[in-house]
């Protein structure tokens, strides 16, 4: 046998290569079976990044369905409330490219909270049915009100209101939430600003 191989180097090479191929093939096949990934934990991680406003602007009924869609390969730039920061976080998690927000799905806005002008409310409960997080309190024929701390600012309640008594108000800044902003470094070409030295009124 060995003699034969020595005499026919071509055969030896062929055998060696086929042998190697067989061994590595077996190894790969085993690994494919042994280390199969179970389930899809990525959905949970994506869902944790999404802002949970449940606003439906992404075209999915709620944040979790969108998280599932992203895991299945959908674009990550469909969430206006998450904004650019959210897109970046998703891009990092999924190792995808950072893309600008798709404005077919709306624009990034400052955080808002719904406000019911209570003397105009007729108590129709339509907004209560629309609210995805049960943040509106009220009963039929009784004035409703928004529990501001629970409101996600999704503005789904605005449209159903028959008397247009719901406004979206930007979340007010308080002493507790106020803070210094990062110095602006975006316009370094045009004019150079050291700090956000602004002028108070």
């Amino acid at each position, binding site marked *: 046998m060995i003699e034969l191989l020595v005499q026919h180097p071509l055969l030896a090479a062929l055998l060696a290569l086929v042998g190697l191929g067989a061994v590595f093939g077996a190894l790969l096949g085993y690994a494919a079976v042994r280390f199969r990934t179970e389930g899809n934990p990525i959905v949970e991680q994506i869902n944790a990044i999404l802002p949970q406003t449940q606003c439906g602007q992404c075209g999915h009924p709620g944040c979790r369905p969108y998280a599932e869609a992203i895991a299945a390969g959908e674009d990550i730039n469909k969430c206006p409330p998450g904004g650019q920061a959210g897109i970046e976080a998703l891009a990092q998690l999924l190792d995808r490219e950072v893309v600008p927000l798709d404005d077919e799905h709306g624009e990034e806005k400052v955080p808002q909270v719904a406000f019911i002008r209570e003397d105009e409310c007729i108590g129709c409960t339509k907004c209560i049915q629309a609210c995805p*997080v049960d943040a509106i309190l009220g009963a039929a024929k009784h004035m409703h009100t928004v529990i501001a701390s629970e409101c996600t600012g999704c503005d789904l309640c605005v449209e159903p209101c028959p008397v247009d008594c719901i406004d979206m108000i930007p979340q007010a800044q308080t*002493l507790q939430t106020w803070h210094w902003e990062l110095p602006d470094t975006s316009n370094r070409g045009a004019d150079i600003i050291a700090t956000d030295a602004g002028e108070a009124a």
Partner: protein
Amino acid sequence: MRKIHDFHGGIHPVENKHQSLHTPIRDAGIPAELTLPLSQHIGAPATPLVAVGERVLKGQLVAEATGLVSAALHAPTSGTVTAIEPRPIAHPSGLPAPCLVIASDGEDAWCELPPPCSFETLERPELLARIRAAGIAGMGGAGFPAAVKLGLKPGTQVETLIINGTECEPYITADDILMRERAAQIVRGAQILAHLVAPAETVIGIEDNKPEAIAAMCAAAEGTGIEIAVFPTKYPSGGEKQLIELLTGKQVPSGGLPMDVGVVCQNVGTAAAVADAVEHGRPLISRITTVTGAAVDEPQNFEVLLGTPMSHLLALAGYRAADNPRLVMGGPMMGFTVPDPGVPIVKTTNCILAPSAQELPAPPPAQACIRCGLCAEACPASLLPQQLYWFARGREFEKAEAHNLFDCIECGACSYVCPSNIPLVQYYRAAKAEVLQMRRDAQKAEHSRQRFEARQERLEREEAEKEARRAARKQAAEEKARRAADAGSGEADPVQAAIERAQARKAAQAAGAASEENPLQKLEKTVVTTRERLEKAEAKLAQARSEGADHIAALETGVEKTRAKLAAAEQALQDYQAQQTPAEPAPAGDAAQAAIQKAMAARAAQANKSPLEKARDNLEKLEARLAKSEARLAESRAAGEEEKIVEALASSVERLQEKVAAARAELAAEES
């Protein structure tokens, strides 16, 4: 002589302290109006105890501490409460905060104070209560309520009590002059604090650039066992953590408190205030404040009532507003700019700095970081400021946190030495705030998610129940049909079914009649349960009263409400019984019949109405709404409410106006 340790980093900025030390402490007098922010300390704001229009006396408690970490407020002089409303306060944001405004009457009449006493005679809880009642919050700048810091957990052993007379910031001399002029009071305060926390040693730490203060303190501390430790001048040795390392060689663990290494630290100003509070029963209503900078003619120290507008003090010191591009509360290293000179002095205002443009020039444009490392050399917390800067700038906040962003004390040493003029501290402040904001957002998102999922679950359940009911009904119907079919020898008999339906309806009506007793039972039950609840609430209230808990007021209103409910329930029961006795229950169908008739009548009326009338009605309704909205808008404009709200209202008015216009057009069309 104790061993003085050193801490990493630190800088030596120009001190500029002599300017304000030429004259002794001057009384700033009583301004016409005092503005007391309800939150002058770290923690929950105080709750006002007085009403607008009420007359208050000097030293009277006007707002009490709420919650564990909070401090009380007292009237700094006698006068009338003119407003409790948001006013601009000394805060870099320039946002208003709730304030209590007192118009002084000039009499400066004291309220009744507890009798003076000697602290040795007082027990620890009583001492603590006096300090708490006096509303003392850290006078060094942070404003942590003193009583909270001193209220040690039982069983803790304090090694060192440090009285901080370091005052390392340039320009500020409030503690210096206090130590020079009131050394004895500070030492008494220190003795009281020592009595309270029973430390193994008490040290007063002073930088060596205050020789007069050191001499005065040494003289006053003679024979008291209190040590005066003098150490080289270096910024920021007055920082609590740095001072502890200087004097004890120990480092406060990250995220921990000085107590974790057996140290309690208080400012000299706090010590003096404690002495006043305990010995004379006087609450904290005034403090020493330095007014300095090149834009005032006579830099000096004032004893000033809390709530005095800064402009009042500045005027006394000869302020030249034209020379002053920025007004700083605190020192040049850690102080913050105030948006308006009218903001009040608070418990933490140790200095008002009015520099000229030459003295503290506006920050020049930032250049690129050249990684020179001077910031790392200067950092007293041994951080890598430029790494933090890169992370903050790149919004890589997790990495910044991993590089101990939250150990930064914002002392400003890094920005001071930075050759490229990078506003490092601003980056750190912003980064910290963003991290906190992100944590809050994550929490809120999680909360929203849970609520959303709970709601979805509920809707599904309801849907399922509905489905189940429908299925059951269907099954019953089928069952019935089959039975009918069986009975009717395989032929579905509609007549039979109708009869059966009618019978079922009758049975149901009978059942309804049987349940006629229900309202009575229900009312009785309500009365019983309400009574039970009232009893429970009363017991709770009594318990709370005996314990002197905070929420008595809330409980009281609760009891009140429950009582009212009980009365109402009893009344309802009686009414019902009275109604029941004379007449037998009316046939059940009657009420429904009446309602149906009424509805039919309404509909007929509606149908009878001509389109013209309808349109007119509609217009009337809309006009009423418009008027209401306009009134609300005017009101909010007058009240100076926030822009956004006014805008929102304005837009809604506009919408209504449009609708009215449309309705008018419709009406016109109908009429023609």
